[in-house]
């Protein structure tokens, strides 16, 4: 069984790892202990600035710092980073295309017991509509580290989506390569493609095994970069497998499912079945109970794959 590490943990560690090589500062809004920027704060206290519980101000402050040539990481929960501070992210950071990296943790329902007010299933949708915004939703700790590095190497606004919950490490392989904007074909298949992001990637791999038991050959694609999305890998999946299932810990409206449907609708229309939060709010509960309750499960992916295949034109 693979190790389980929360991507937020990997985020905090990556900030420290790259602090010597890159010139940046880190802001947080009284959630350093939770977002794990506390790891950076302890290592580099002179480069860490708490903004208090005022996320809108933090984003505009980050933009102001970035105008002076310094890269800034600004962290909070996804709900507040993308939700509360949407307009500041859009106008202060996005519009002038400033070098601010938004480290948004506690995305999706795996926030768990805190419940719906803190479970952000809308952040990808919000961030996708900001011109020039790059969005990466890593599937595990290995990818989260790569995402932080990619953010440092990329000029301009960058949204990093991390989770609270410890998820299996699936990318600790010698042949793993992270390329910003490029999806990863984790397994080949002919009958259907499971396009997954974030913690749903490991579930998609499990679903592939379950489908294989029933004689269905599923391709699995990891889309870590939601924007700019890899049109090539998606178009090839549509053309070569004829059906797609998307899987995300996010509202099916505006997230990965929408992004994939937009691409294949233009390049190679095939049935797309979206698995994710079905336009609903979350709930308090343990993470396994929530994933089950909202259908973010291997079983649901298997059903969705069959549904997508059934919709293929004869």
């Amino acid at each position, binding site marked *: 069984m693979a190790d389980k590490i929360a991507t937020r943990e990997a985020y905090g560690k990556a900030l420290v790892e790259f602090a010597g090589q890159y010139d940046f*500062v880190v802001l947080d809004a009284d959630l350093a202990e939770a977002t794990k920027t506390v790891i950076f704060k302890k290592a580099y206290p002179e*480069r860490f*600035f708490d*903004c*208090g519980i*005022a996320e*809108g*101000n933090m*984003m*505009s*402050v*980050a*933009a*102001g*710092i*970035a*105008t*002076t*040539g*310094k890269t800034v990481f600004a962290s909070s929960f996804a709900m507040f980073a993308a939700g509360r501070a949407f*307009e*500041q992210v859009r*106008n*202060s950071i996005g*519009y*002038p*295309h400033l070098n601010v990296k938004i480290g948004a943790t506690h995305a999706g329902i795996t926030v768990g017991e805190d419940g719906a007010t803190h479970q952000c299933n809308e952040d990808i949708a919000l961030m996708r509509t900001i011109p020039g915004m790059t969005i990466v939703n890593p599937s595990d700790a290995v990818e989260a580290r790569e995402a932080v590095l990619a953010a440092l190497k990329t000029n301009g606004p960058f949204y990093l989506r991390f989770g609270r919950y410890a998820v299996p490490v699936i990318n600790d392989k010698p042949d793993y390569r992270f390329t910003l904007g490029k999806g990863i074909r984790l397994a080949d298949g002919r009958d259907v493609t499971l396009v997954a992001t974030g913690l749903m990637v490991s579930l998609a791999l499990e679903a592939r095994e379950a489908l294989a038991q029933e004689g269905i050959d599923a391709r699995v694609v990891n889309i870590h970069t939601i924007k700019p999305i890899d049109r090539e890998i998606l178009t090839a999946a549509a053309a070569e497998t004829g059906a797609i299932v998307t899987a995300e810990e996010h509202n099916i409206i505006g997230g990965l499912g929408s992004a994939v449907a937009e691409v294949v609708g233009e390049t190679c229309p095939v049935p797309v079945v979206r698995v994710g939060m079905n336009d609903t709010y979350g709930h308090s509960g343990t993470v396994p109970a929530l994933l089950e309750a909202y259908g973010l499960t291997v079983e649901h992916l298997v059903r969705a794959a069959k549904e997508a295949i059934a919709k293929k034109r004869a």
Partner: protein
Amino acid sequence: MEESRLQLLRERAKQIRIGVIEGTHAAKSGHPGGSLSIADLLSYLYFEEMNVDPADPKKEERDRFVLSKGHCAPALYAALAARGYFAPEELTTLRKIGSRLQGHPDMTLTPGVDMSAGSLGLGVSSAAGMALAGKIGGKNYRVYTIVGDGESEEGQVWEACMFAAHYKLDNFCLILDWNGLQIDGSVEEVMNPTPHDKKLEAFGFHVISIDGHDFDQIAAAFAEARKTKGKPTAIIAKTVKGKGVSFMENQVKWHGSAPNDEQYAQAIAELKGGN
């Protein structure tokens, strides 16, 4: 202040006001009222106070200015043109397709604009961020921001103030344009944000109240702000909305409407005739 300096500042302020009228008239839209109220403050900032160089607009050590009440961009553009960042003729391209002079300041388009701003409340935070960056980098530059009185109804203004005081940003100077009017009426009637002096003091600022059209008072206030250490300074500048154009003064309708040809001619005549 000696008469020659005073004359120069008045002349620059007049140029800025004329630029505001030229720009908004040509655009057939825009915000002349609040632009005219800050013309004297901008004249002082760009011709006396700030260390800036139009030949090198992005110079690292420069002082920085953020027009948080970004709808008054016509005044900022006129000040930048007067200071030599671009030709004054460009002012009449205001708000037109293809122009570098957007309805609200865009740092990526206009030379001399240090921050894109205008969605109210955001610019003051960015200015505070620039001031913090100066402290982090051990730079000596100062950061100035003009905030509208109506804008002070935005909660973010106060978040930014808390932040500036918390980090002891004595290189940060907030100027409140207290012209008393906002779109829906008098500021006190719409949503009373007063008393600004006591509030800003409570938020940790050194507060100076002045007549925002009196250059001696403006000069003294900025000098005092420079000398103030360990905390940011707020200058509450009592101003007249529409200042310098008789029919625009203290008239809320001139917040966001442009002069027609006749009004334009009268405004220019008044401005050219006066000081």
